[in-house]
């Protein structure tokens, strides 16, 4: 992206750069994060050539950072994505996202008689018991959800 031939997707002043999104998934990602309904300027690059992963997508969100919950969801949706926070054209922090060990809030337990599906002042909490393929366990009811149950939620 920053090679000598110049910038295909121009630099942003403040905001977040989500890089190395699997090629073709950028639009799905924008929808997932609810960015399509916000007023923040978005710059989207799709099927961008990458030395490391062949082809990739990239999304730049102007004037917005991601919450922990959004980062967790993103790690589940597309492990390997990098997220950079930009301040005044400078990269302030950069993280490589992976499947988190504990997932707070993002997921809903698919056990209909799990206490988290009732009116209690609690947030869901899942422990990742296996990353490939994904298996998560509800820390309240012990229900184990499979990758397809997880991905269908995000």
């Amino acid at each position: 992206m920053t090679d000598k031939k110049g910038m295909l997707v121009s630099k942003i002043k403040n905001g977040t750069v989500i890089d190395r999104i699997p090629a073709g998934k950028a639009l799905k990602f924008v929808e997932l994060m609810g960015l399509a309904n916000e007023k923040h300027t978005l710059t989207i690059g799709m099927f961008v050539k990458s030395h490391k992963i062949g082809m990739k997508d990239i999304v730049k969100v102007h004037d917005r950072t991601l919450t922990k919950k959004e980062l967790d969801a993103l790690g589940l949706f597309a492990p390997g994505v990098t997220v950079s926070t930009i301040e005044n054209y400078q990269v302030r922090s950069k993280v490589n996202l992976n499947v988190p060990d504990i997932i707070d809030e993002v997921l809903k337990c698919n056990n209909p008689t799990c206490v988290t599906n009732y009116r209690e002042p609690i947030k869901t909490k899942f422990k990742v018991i296996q990353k490939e393929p994904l298996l998560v366990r509800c820390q309240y009811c012990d229900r184990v959800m499979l990758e397809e149950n997880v991905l269908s939620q995000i």
Partner: protein
Amino acid sequence: MKHLVSIRDISREEILELIDLAGKVEKNPEKYAHALDGKIMATLFYEPSTRTRLSFETAMHRLGGRVIGFSDAKVSSAKKGESIADTIRMASAYSDVIVLRHFLEGSGRVAVEYSDVPVISGGTGIQEHPSQALLDVYTIYKHFGRLNNLTIGLLGDLRYGRTIPSLLYAISKFKDNKVFLFSPPELRTRMSVLNDVRDNIEAIIRQDLKSNIEELDVLYVTRVQKERFPDEASYERVKDFYVIDPEIARRMNKNSIIMHPLPRINEISYEVDSLPQAKYFEQAKNGVWMRMALLLKLIGETK
């Protein structure tokens, strides 16, 4: 050990300590008659129960403590829509220990988050029934003098019976145990529970009890509930398959035991009650000793 909502949360050593203490209490109950003088136990039962509630209440009374609570969600403010969290906050302000039975899985964990006093699960949905598992292993230990190197058959509804996961978790803390899981295919032990114990238990899934009956040290029978089946026909097809009659009992090893968390309906015939293997009424009685030990350990001064 601060609470007891899952056997997964406690260690083998803690189980052995509880068994040891239950034994002491059983031998000399008078010594503990005032151990919990002035303490109050709240029993919050959102689901009907006979043995669990009565034996917890008996245990508390025998230790000199008092009991408050409800045994029917219809008479509590749950009916008005109060959350578990709020009910627990209130009960933990009124009492020194809470026993909670609730039909939702995970309710015990919510209670722990909102309680300032120890919480004991008296049965949590289909998830667990930890105090039952403790009295079960106490019963097994009293008879065999060990909790390892045993062959245990679990029979009946292994999928929805909340006793089953707790008992498997307890057994899995000990070595060299072999467990036969006898059930109709639709009532097999949940995969997540099997995964939790597979490193420590040799588990063998069977549909038919008859071929392995002679091998068993313990036959643990649970009720096959009609409401777990999609239709009457599939219930009728399996229900008599899992009835223990004297003929089956006599094929068992002389030193083996038959257990049941009770209530039984017809899965153990009355003729079996007088056979030496029948342990289920003694098992129910052991519930009081073990629950006394549990209360002493959680809120007793001397522990």
